[in-house]
């Protein structure tokens, strides 16, 4: 499936990665990323589900380790069950079938604003060392190099969820010291910024990329490399980052998707629209 290789989109990666213990069951890098995203959801979480890979991540979590998670969608949809058929967008009719609630955008945004959404997912085009995301203007408003689609609900998720998880391609042009424009606030210029500007809670907890998983230092709020995907080196992640990326002393390897996870993923994305390379 050809997808747009512009900012705002996870780039397809050509080679499928073979799993050492199961060479007959290769998986794609996108499948690894979706599995990693799904593991960020705990059972019982109220999850604000974003477009693209997060749609699959929620379906996967719901069908495996988090059967009691509740899915909230900005169109005004709440689901307590996975959609019965594969969906490409959250507005596909199977995602409405026996939903828990079909309502207004303001209703679901209200849940977010009240502070009862545990986790949310956002795709990014450009991110910086404090997890601020830009999906609006590359180059900034004064000197527009590229106009991207904008916030949608992303600014709200980043402002108001208890935590948010960022999913994006790991490239030096996207991982910049300071974003040109903050569409979705992370930790601003570091510790204390969110409180200072008046955001009530939250901030990014995790960045899942094509190369690894980053988390944030609890004191400085700076991004720290926590795990690398199979076949990726720490050096490669550091070289693909536009500032001197901090590396956890206990950097781990991102667990490969299990056979059960892969089977479920392929049920929900049978044509590999989101997960083929």
């Amino acid at each position, binding site marked *: 499936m050809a*997808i*747009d290789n*512009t900012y*705002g*989109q996870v780039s397809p990666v050509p080679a499928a990665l073979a799993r050492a213990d199961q060479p007959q069951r290769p998986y794609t890098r996108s499948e690894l990323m979706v599995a990693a995203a799904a593991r960020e959801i705990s059972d019982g979480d109220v999850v604000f589900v974003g*477009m*693209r890979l997060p749609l699959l991540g929620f379906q996967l979590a719901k069908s495996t380790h988090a059967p009691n998670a509740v899915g909230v*969608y*900005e*169109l*005004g*949809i709440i689901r307590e069950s996975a959609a019965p058929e594969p969906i*490409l*967008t*959250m*507005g*596909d*009719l199977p995602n*409405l*079938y*026996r939903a828990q609630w*079909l*309502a*207004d*955008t*303001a209703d679901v*945004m209200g849940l*977010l*604003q009240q502070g009862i959404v545990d986790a949310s997912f956002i795709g990014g085009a450009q991110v910086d060392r404090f997890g601020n995301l*830009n999906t*609006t*203007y590359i180059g900034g*408003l004064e000197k*527009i190099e*590229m*106009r*991207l*689609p*904008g*916030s*949608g*609900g*992303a*600014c*709200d998720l980043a*402002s*108001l969820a208890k935590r948010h998880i960022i999913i994006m391609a790991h490239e030096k042009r996207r991982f910049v010291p300071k974003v040109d*424009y*903050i*569409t*979705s*606030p992370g930790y*601003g210029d570091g510790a204390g*910024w*969110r409180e200072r*500007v*008046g*955001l*009530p809670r939250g901030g990014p907890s995790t960045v899942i990329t094509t190369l690894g998983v980053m988390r944030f230092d609890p004191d400085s709020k700076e991004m720290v490399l926590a795990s690398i995907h199979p076949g990726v080196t720490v050096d490669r992640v550091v070289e693909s980052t536009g500032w001197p990326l901090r590396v956890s002393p206990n950097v781990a390897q991102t667990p490969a998707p299990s056979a059960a996870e892969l089977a479920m993923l392929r049920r929900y994305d049978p044509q590999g*629209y989101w997960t083929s390379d």
Partner: protein
Amino acid sequence: MPTSRLVSLTEAIARFAPDGSSAAMGTALESLIPFAAGREIIRQRKRDLTLIGPISDILFDQIVGGGCVRKVRAAWAGNVITGSGYNFRRAVESRNIEVEDHSNLTIAMALRAGAMGVSFMPARTALGSGLYDTNSSLKAITCPFTGDAVTAVAAITPDVAIVHVQRSDEYGNAHSWGNLGVTREACLASKHIILTAEEIVSPDVISSDPNRVVTPGFRVSAVVHAPWGAHPSPVPGYYNRDHQAFIDYQNESRTPEAFAAWRAHWVDGSADYLSLLGEERVASLTLKMHALAEAVDYGY
């Protein structure tokens, strides 16, 4: 009885979406997008419109590509399953249109303020963001009760809301179901409302279930019978999303020349839209399974 508001799409757009007016569209976000109305706006060569909405999928990209737009007040403009909206990108990067960047929450609050008849609504989003820095409709204020920082979102009162619904009577009483997005506040905030409907039904059908009415008919200016009027977006109870059309549109809009060909084929040509789609495609999008709700009792 009120007089019928049933008119042609041509007349509705000509009368209630004149050059220079502001129009809220795509208010249910990814479904029920009034694409037929968008094509009619392009066909009538409207100029200097302000488009208002949360995310419009490719609708706003098409109308911008038609040269009809001066300003976009929206949370997002692109192609949901492929990424960029190329006409929108070209217009913004060449500074041919102005953009007021919202989030889905701030656009909902702006329209709700309009619907409530107040000058702003408070929200807690966007503080510290580029949206807050660049959008003059967002201002930080201190809550007089808690002392917390709050974002005041200025009211938006569009000249017209253009909304696609499943079924309407000729007086503008209409049923809509599925996710509604910001449709209810967009209708109430607007001076005029144009409804495009899959089916025109008798008033008895609508009044049998008043909870499903999207906005009171007396506020509606025009009702248009527009079957398949939201294609390629989905309409609950009628047809599924035509993913291929959105995928094709990526290439059909990638260059100005490609978009001109798209427009000549889908907008300015003389062929009927459904015959352009073809029977096979139409059949492939219809519901494969029905899921009827239980009836409810409004008796006394």
